[in-house]
Structures are given as structure tokens and as C-alpha cells.
């Protein structure tokens, strides 16, 4: 136990000095277990050199982004969480080679802090550069998108007792972006599945299950039709399952999962899948618990980087009017706390948030109430302070 903490401290030191153990930046199983999930033995000191306070890069985003980020910062302050925020902007700029990239100070901050919290980013239509989310994903190699979907008591949907996690491969698959026009009127889109990426995501899924006390992992696929590609993905999942025998492994066709999900979502635990199915299923599950306004999300990258974000849009029509709902960003921040090992604070803030929603006295418009964002935030802050 102590050895692990020491080794991770040494790895951390080497990383900060720009070195790595074997010169290659490939994820090793030991490193995976270091960075993912919540370790009871993990101490804050092994993560950042500054004792006590941890610095997190905050990207407020556009639209309602700044106001919900301010709300989250206020709540964290009330909860006395040991987090220091470093605000950065990620609007794309043209780098020296003519390639679009994120501003160097943002990149530097993320590389240093390893943990980030991001608000909604505007999708540029005619700005000439790709979407910011895509840029971030490529810059930090964010290969896993994790979305825990838990029913919120107090926000009624037709589905109760939902408690599942979707883990989606985020770099390849159907979203590789490789398309050609073969002849006029025939378009070909390429779905890419690689052994390395499938292995990485499968390993991550099992590690996550283990670290968060989840009983089973289900691989979602369509290997009856896409024999080679989903077949490869499935093989890698099976191999990872062999290495983690304490977690149950099942495989299910995509259509069966969809069918059963809308009839009885309680039968699912952790779901792991390639990019497209993950996109559809994670939004389906978000719909089950109440939509994107209340769903947290985290992106795990190589080299220990993790960016937690709210997945809803920028809502330009209510921006600046104090009407936004900060729940999604707040729950993502809670997920971030758990990732960092600060379970006590995470529990406190989450409980305060759920209690406030259940109470029904101060709810924002999208949850069916009439209150302002600031009132909602203050109510949560009050509850958090009362808990101490």
C-alpha cells in the first residue's frame, strides 16, 4: 500500500520533470489503476505537490457556462473543498504550423493540473476551425467518456431506480471522420476499430467497475452484422474480463440493450461500447433520468488527464438571465471530487444538491420550478453549511 503511494509519487515527480519511465507514453496497467476511480489509499499529497489544496483547471465555456461555473465555485467554497480553480479559455487559435489548436496556456494548465472542469462550449458553424470539444479530445487523447446515470429523487421521470454507467470509447469507431464520395451519389463512411483502443477502453471499464464497487460489465455490440470490427472489440473485452474475474462480464446486442433499457433499466450496471452506440445509449440513459440538464459526464484521457463536463448546450436564450440550472455541472464536479479521492466532500455536496431538488421549494425553470439560479445555488450552499 505504501509502496503504491510512493511509486505514484515518484511517477508524478518524473512526469512533472518531463520524463517518463520507459520513454513511451503508453498506458500501463499499473498507471491505469493509479489514475482511475477512487482509491481508498490514495492521498491528496501524491497527486499534487502543494499540500492540501489541489488546483483544477476550470473552463467556464460559453452561454450559461460562466454563471453555472460561478455557482459551482460558490458551492465548493461553502463546502470548504480543498480546490483551487484556474480559469482558462479554450477558443481555438491557429498555431505555427497552420493547424488549429487550443491556447498554449490552457494546455499547460491542464498538463500541470491533470484535472479539469468544463462548461458548455459553443459549436462554431462558420469559424473555420473544428469544434472545441473535438480539439480537446485530440489534444489530451480523451479516450473514455463516462456517464453515470442515477435517478434523481425528487425529479420524477417515468423511470425510477436507474443506476447505471455508460462507458463509451471516444476516439475512433464510427466517428473517425473518414468519408469519401466513391462515385457521384455513393458515399462511404469508414468505421475504424483498433485493437489498442478497444483494449484500452475495456481495461478502463473493468478498472472503473472494480474501483466503484460495480458488480458487472456488459459489452454492447453488433457483432452479428459487423463481424470483424465489433468482433475485435468483443474479443478485447473478453480478454480484459479474464484479467478481472471479480467483475461479472456479459455481452449483449445493441438492439436487445435498447429494447430492455426502456422496459427495465434496473437490470443494467456498467455498459462499455464503441463510439456510435455509446453516443446513442448514453443520451438514451440521460433521457431516462431527466435529460442533459441533470446528467454528469467525465472524460478520461491518457497520461492521467481527466476532464469533467456538463453535456448540455450553451442555451444562449437564457444566458446572463440567472435562469440556468447548474445541476449538471455540479454533479460533474462531484464526479471529479470522487475521482480525486475526496469522497467526504463529494458526498456532502451531492446530498445537498439532491435534498434541495427533492425539497421542491427552490427549483429552476427546467426542473419545473420558478427560482433563479442564484437562489438555487444559495439553497445548496446553506444546506452544505448546515451539514458541518
Amino acid at each position: 500500500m505504501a509502496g503504491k503511494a510512493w511509486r505514484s509519487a515518484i511517477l508524478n515527480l518524473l512526469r512533472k520533470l518531463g520524463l517518463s519511465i520507459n520513454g513511451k507514453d503508453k498506458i500501463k496497467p499499473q498507471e491505469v489503476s493509479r489514475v482511475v476511480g477512487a482509491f481508498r489509499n490514495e492521498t491528496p499529497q501524491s497527486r499534487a505537490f502543494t499540500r492540501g489544496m489541489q488546483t483544477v483547471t476550470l473552463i467556464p465555456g460559453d452561454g450559461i457556462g460562466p454563471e453555472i461555473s460561478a455557482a459551482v465555485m460558490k458551492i465548493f467554497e461553502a463546502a470548504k473543498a480543498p480546490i483551487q480553480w484556474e480559469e482558462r479559455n479554450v477558443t481555438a487559435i491557429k498555431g505555427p504550423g497552420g493547424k488549429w489548436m487550443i491556447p498554449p496556456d490552457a494546455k499547460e494548465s491542464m498538463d500541470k493540473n491533470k484535472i479539469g472542469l468544463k462548461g458548455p462550449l459553443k459549436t462554431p458553424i462558420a469559424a473555420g476551425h473544428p469544434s472545441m470539444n473535438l480539439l480537446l479530445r485530440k489534444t489530451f487523447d480523451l479516450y473514455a467518456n463516462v456517464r453515470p446515470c442515477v435517478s434523481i429523487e425528487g425529479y420524477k421521470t417515468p423511470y425510477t431506480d436507474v443506476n447505471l454507467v455508460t462507458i463509451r470509447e471516444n476516439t475512433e469507431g464510427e466517428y473517425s471522420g473518414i468519408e469519401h464520395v466513391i462515385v457521384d451519389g455513393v458515399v462511404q463512411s469508414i468505421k475504424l476499430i483498433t485493437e489498442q483502443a478497444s483494449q484500452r477502453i475495456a481495461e478502463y471499464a473493468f478498472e472503473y467497475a472494480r474501483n466503484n464497487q460495480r458488480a458487472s460489465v456488459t459489452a454492447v455490440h453488433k457483432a452479428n452484422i459487423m463481424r470483424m470490427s465489433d468482433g475485435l472489440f468483443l474479443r478485447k473485452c473478453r480478454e480484459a474480463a479474464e484479467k478481472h474475474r471479480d467483475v461479472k462480464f456479459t455481452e449483449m446486442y445493441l438492439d436487445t440493450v435498447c429494447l430492455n433499457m426502456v422496459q427495465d433499466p434496473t437490470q443494467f450496471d456498467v455498459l462499455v461500447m464503441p463510439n456510435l452506440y455509446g453516443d446513442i445509449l448514453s443520451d438514451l440513459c440521460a433521457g431516462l433520468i431527466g435529460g442533459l440538464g441533470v446528467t454528469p459526464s467525465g472524460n478520461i484521457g491518457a497520461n492521467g488527464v481527466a476532464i469533467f463536463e456538463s453535456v448540455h448546450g450553451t442555451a444562449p436564450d437564457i444566458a446572463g438571465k440567472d435562469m440556468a440550472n447548474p445541476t449538471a455541472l455540479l454533479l460533474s464536479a462531484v464526479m471529479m471530487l470522487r475521482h480525486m479521492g475526496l469522497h467526504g466532500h463529494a458526498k456532502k455536496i451531492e446530498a445537498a444538491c439532491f435534498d434541495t431538488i427533492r425539497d421542491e421549494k427552490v427549483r429552476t425553470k427546467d426542473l419545473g420550478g420558478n427560482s433563479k439560479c442564484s437562489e438555487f445555488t444559495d439553497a445548496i450552499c446553506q444546506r452544505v453549511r448546515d451539514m458541518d
Partner: protein
Amino acid sequence: MAAHSAVLSASKIINPFWGGRLGNTVKVFGTTLTSHRNKTLLTPPPAKYGGRHTVTLIPGDGIGPELLNHVREVFRFSCVPVDFEVVHVNSALETEDDINNAITAIRRNGVALKGNIETKHTMAPSVKSRNNLLRTSLDLYANVMHCQSLPGVQTRHKNIDIMIIRENTEGEYSSLEHESVSGVVESLKIITRNNSLRIADYAFRLAREKGRRRVTAVHKANIMKLGDGLFLQCCREVASGYPDITFDSMIVDNTTMQLVSKPQQFDVMVMPNLYGNVVSNVCAGLVGGPGLVPGANYGRDYAVFETATRNTGKSIADRNIANPTAMLLAGCMMLDHLKLYDHASSIRNAVLTTMNENRLQTADIGGQGTTSEVVQSVMRIIQSKGQLTADL
């Protein structure tokens, strides 16, 4: 065959819009083709000898054989003038002879009723999905599914009435895969203009025929700009020819989210193959499960009827607990296609009465009945209506 249908669909679209702009040959050729097309729609269904139709029956695997036996039982009992030509397809074999025999039989008869054929994905990748082979060989380009909330079934959402039209031959199911470098597999998704126009046209015609107000195209064109972009463009082109029907589009992940929160907003939906798979399964789940919804695959010359969600149901096979509703309703859809409307409505009414009024339901929708009990009840109701029946 492909070129023929390509020119057919191209000329059919071109002629109404730009009549004659593309030269005399196309106009003449096009008119001949379109009149030939209309002629096909007006000719009586094929394989009818002595007043009796012959339909290919493919039992498939899992619950297929037992449910199709029940369909045959009900048809025999109601004196439906349909004879079934049974063709077995063994999914464990690697050769494609079985499925080719089935395809030949369907070409001969024109209509088929089938159970799902299992695809063992532990076999080599060269052994393709038999169901997919059948669909592509017969060019059954439209998969139609009508999801309706049934009064007798308890579901979380009420008043659902969605028609789903799914492109059935291309898209992600093209089965074109290769391993270019060891450890890197590429799977090709093909979208063609002709097929997209064809399916969009089918969707709008069906919407007009059934008196529907709105068609929604489901896509992911923000990511797959060329592929789904082409599909969306074709839908828009066809939509302009149907000004009485509203057309809008929705991205697939938003669609699934809307389906689980407010499914009543959807009317008719048209989409490429894979999204169709997801959306049709979600809708089937919303109205009560895979045992309730029938599906149909239509091509220009052939029609194959089956359950909408194409489940093999291996875990409930031969236990007398499967829900026969979907297969019986698929049989009714087939009878409608053969223009045996009276028989179709009598069987359909009997099935729906059993479910909604008598509340005799199988376990998948929360009841206690067995498959045979439900089938017996259906037959009793048909008999009670006074039509000619065999002995119970």
C-alpha cells in the same frame, strides 16, 4: 437489377419535377418504366393457383418454429386460402445453400413469413448473417414497423402511434469489412443517393396513404457529414414534392432522448439502417416489448413478414411462454398484402380482443397465460364471430 431500379427511381423522381428537361430518351424510357411500375402495383399478387396463395415459410431458430406453427394452426382453423411452403435454414452450417434455397422459394412465391435465423458470431466472419443476405438479395429496401400503444398493456408511456420506416439494405449493414493492418479493422458504411431517394419516397407515399401529417428524418449528419448528409438531402428533395406533409429532421441521440421522455411527438420516422435498428427497438420497448409488434420488409417485387424486433428468443424457446401476438399480427399484415382483407381483420380483431378485453396475456407483458392458451382464445373468438371455421 441495381441499374434497373436506379434508373427507375431516378426517372420517377425526375419526371414529376422537371418533366422532359433531361431529353427525350429518358422521358420515353422513363414513362415506359413508370407505367411498368404502376402495372406491377395493379397486378394481382403472385403464386395464386385455384384461388389459394402459396407463401414461403422460414421457421428460423429459437421461438420462430413454435410461433409459426401457431400461425399455421390459426390460419388452418380460419380456413384462410394460404398454403405454406416450408423451407428450413440451418444456421449452424457454413454453406449458403440453405438460404439460397429459401431465396429461390421466395422469388417463386413472392411473399414470405419468417422467424429470425440466428447468426453465430463465433463462426468465421465470412459466414454472413442469413437474415441480412435474404434482405439484400431480394432488395427488400423498406422495413416498416407500426408501434401503437395497446389499451390492454401496461406501459410507462401512453398514446404512442409511430410508424418507423427503415432503410433495409445498405448503410452500416453492408457487411464490407477488412483488416488493413493487423489490429486495425475497417467497416464500411455505404449510403447511396438512389437508395436514400427510394426509401424517402416510400416513407412519404406511405405517410400520405395513411393520412399522416409529419415525417421526421433521423440522422447524424453533424458528424457523418457526407454519408448522413446525403441521406438528409435526399429526404429534403422528396419532401418538397409532398407539400401537405411536414418534414423535419432530428439527430439520433436527441431522438432517443425524446423517445423516452415524450414519444407522443413523433408521427412517421424515416432513417438509415443502424439508427433504424436502435429506434425501432426503443419504440417496441415503449409500447410493451418484442412480443407485440409485427414488422414487414417490402421490396419492389417481394414482401417478407416477421416480428419487428427480429429476436430469436433462444432463452424462451419451447417453453410455451412466448407471446404469439407479434407473429400473428405479422401474419395478418401478410394477409393484407395478399388482399385477403376479411381474414386479416378477423384474426387481428381476435388477437387484440384477447389481449385488451379478455386480458389473457403472456408473461412478457405481465400476464399468466401460456402461448397455447392465447392461441386457443384467438381461435374461439374467430369461431364466435360466425365465420366459416374448421373444428376447434
